[in-house]
């Protein structure tokens, strides 16, 4: 037996029961063990009703046993860390667990000195302080941010992983309530001139991260945001100001934003030409592939969990699309032979993650479980074969194909896409 994650049973309790009661042949399953352990009366030293509790504090902290952590790629200036999807519930990502993708490290910015310059094809070029921006009418919106390179680890036919967590595979995805001002409100202030069609957004980091964005998006649902989940944006997410482009690839949503230039053409920056473009099999490369298409991922059961026994389990996961709302998530528990509709947890918000659930009575046999999402345009999350056929195998971004988890007869869960291709 290789103990891995065993929900509902602490390691100490498990060892106690295996060495003691189970050895005596009285218990057949872990569920029985849980019931028996629960009947043991706690000693008074461990009984929280017998000792005064901790007093109030200025700043809360997680329970000591709860230690969710981002997974870091490396310590380079251009690097990333990933959200622990398999450890989280609901849809909102705690701000300190929001994924990171920096191209020149996290800059140290003093908010009271930070300014946003808007110029170019405008009637009134203006510089805004953070106080100016916070004085504009405020808007909040819950939406996801996803790196367009998310999930690339499951695209290579020869290197399909098995022992990989949802975090390691798809953790460049986080969801927050973002607060700020609509970009359209601020652009109205500078007076965009006729003939303008693009924006150049630049960050105040050591890479001066730069992306060209169609003006239409800027006038639609783009925001200048300064808060995340009710507090100031974390430095890793762009403190004190970032561009938010709901549903679009993360790197376009420039962090530490200091400049917007209104133009009539894209600037063709490094990160929209030599990076974040998608080579296709016909010898061309797709450019300005902004929208994140519909995707879903099962976060439980997933590696490294083990299902300790057959019976009722709830398959849980996240689905999202940059094209509006998710309308349907289907789950298969028989390697894709048949599909059932999963329940979607309300509210289903546009360009946000939605939590899906499917109650499953596992018979204890080896199988592969999958999920697939459908969005309001009628787009269905493709298989990896469909993506290979449409794009070839050279792309390194926008790999939103169906994910699979293999459940072995002993309950061990591994990434299972390789078993299907």
């Amino acid at each position, binding site marked *: 037996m290789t103990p891995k994650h065993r929900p509902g049973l602490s390691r100490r309790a498990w060892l106690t029961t295996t060495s003691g009661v189970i050895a005596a042949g009285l218990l057949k399953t872990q569920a029985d063990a849980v019931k028996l352990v629960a009947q043991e009366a706690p000693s008074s030293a461990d009984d929280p009703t017998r000792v005064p509790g901790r007093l109030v504090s200025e700043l809360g902290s997680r329970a000591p046993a709860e230690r969710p952590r981002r997974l870091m790629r490396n310590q380079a200036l251009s690097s990333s860390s990933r959200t622990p999807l398999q450890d989280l519930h609901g849809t909102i990502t705690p701000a300190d667990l929001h994924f990171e993708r920096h191209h020149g490290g996290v800059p140290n910015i003093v908010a009271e000195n930070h300014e946003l310059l808007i110029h170019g094809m405008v009637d009134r070029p203006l510089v*805004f302080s953070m106080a100016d*921006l916070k004085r504009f009418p405020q808007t909040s919106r819950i939406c996801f941010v996803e790196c367009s390179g998310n999930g690339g680890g499951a695209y290579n036919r020869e290197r399909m992983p098995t022992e990989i967590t949802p975090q390691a595979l798809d953790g460049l995805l986080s969801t927050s309530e973002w607060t700020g001002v609509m970009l359209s409100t601020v652009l109205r202030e500078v007076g965009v001139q006729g003939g303008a069609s693009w924006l150049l957004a630049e960050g105040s980091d050591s890479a001066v991260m730069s992306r060209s964005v*169609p003006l239409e998006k800027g006038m639609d649902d783009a925001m200048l945001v300064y808060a995340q989940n009710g507090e100031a944006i974390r430095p890793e997410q762009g403190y004190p100001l970032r561009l938010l482009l709901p549903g679009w690839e993360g790197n376009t949503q420039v962090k530490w934003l200091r400049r917007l230039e209104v133009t009539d*053409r894209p600037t063709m920056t490094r990160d929209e030409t030599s990076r974040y473009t998608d080579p296709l099999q016909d010898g061309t490369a*797709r450019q300005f592939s902004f929208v994140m298409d519909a995707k879903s991922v099962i976060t439980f059961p997933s590696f490294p969990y083990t299902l300790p026994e057959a019976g009722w389990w709830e398959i849980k996961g996240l689905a999202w699309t940059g094209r509006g709302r998710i309308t349907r998530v289907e789950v298969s528990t028989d390697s894709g032979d048949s599909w059932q509709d999963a329940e979607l947890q309300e509210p289903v918000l546009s360009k946000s993650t939605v939590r899906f659930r499917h109650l499953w009575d596992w018979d204890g046999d080896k199988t592969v479980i999958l999920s697939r999402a459908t969005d309001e345009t009628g787009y269905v999350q493709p298989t990896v074969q469909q993506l290979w056929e449409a794009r070839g195998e050279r792309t390194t971004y926008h790999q939103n194909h169906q994910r699979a988890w293999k459940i072995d007869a002993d309950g061990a869960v591994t990434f299972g896409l390789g078993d299907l291709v």
Partner: protein
Amino acid sequence: MRRATTWAAVAVLLAACSPADGPPQATNGVDSEAGDFSAELAANAPASFGFGAYATNARIAMWDIDVKPDGEGLPVGSGSVSEGKRVYEMYCIACHGPTGTEGPNDRLAATDEWEQWPVARGVGNYWPYATTLYDYVRKAMPQNAPGSLSDDQNYAVIAYVLNLNGLLAGDGVLDASSLPAIRMPARDRFVADDRVGGPEIR
């Protein structure tokens, strides 16, 4: 000018909304209906709030450091391949290797055919615009002291990188007029995103 027109058309295409009839079509992520989310200003909002300070030309010039594909934004100055080799060996070689191929960071020199991709994705076979080199090097390089090279040093080191890719002769010199004139091999490889939602997988 032809190129500018093309990309303006792309912006319009990206913004295309639902047709007159039928179910909502892909809008490339642009939310055509307010639905759960309203961006409308309050009815009593003024035509202008008057927030922010006027940005003078001098203020704009401090941060307006980008370079456009037609060369707009390139500074006065010049640099040669031979000067660039010295700059490269001083500031770049540790991360990009003696010939721009060895790493440990991004590969700069690559002339492989695309059919061999992803064997290499460098300046010579994947960067569509030479001006992007200036925009990027001026902003982000060298990584441990970004923005620290002079305008002439930037021209020179870009000249050397282009030389490593076989795109500039050993006696070549770059300035604001010659850099945008360099025709990059990958120039016509890039196409607009044709994913539009709906049932077709692209």
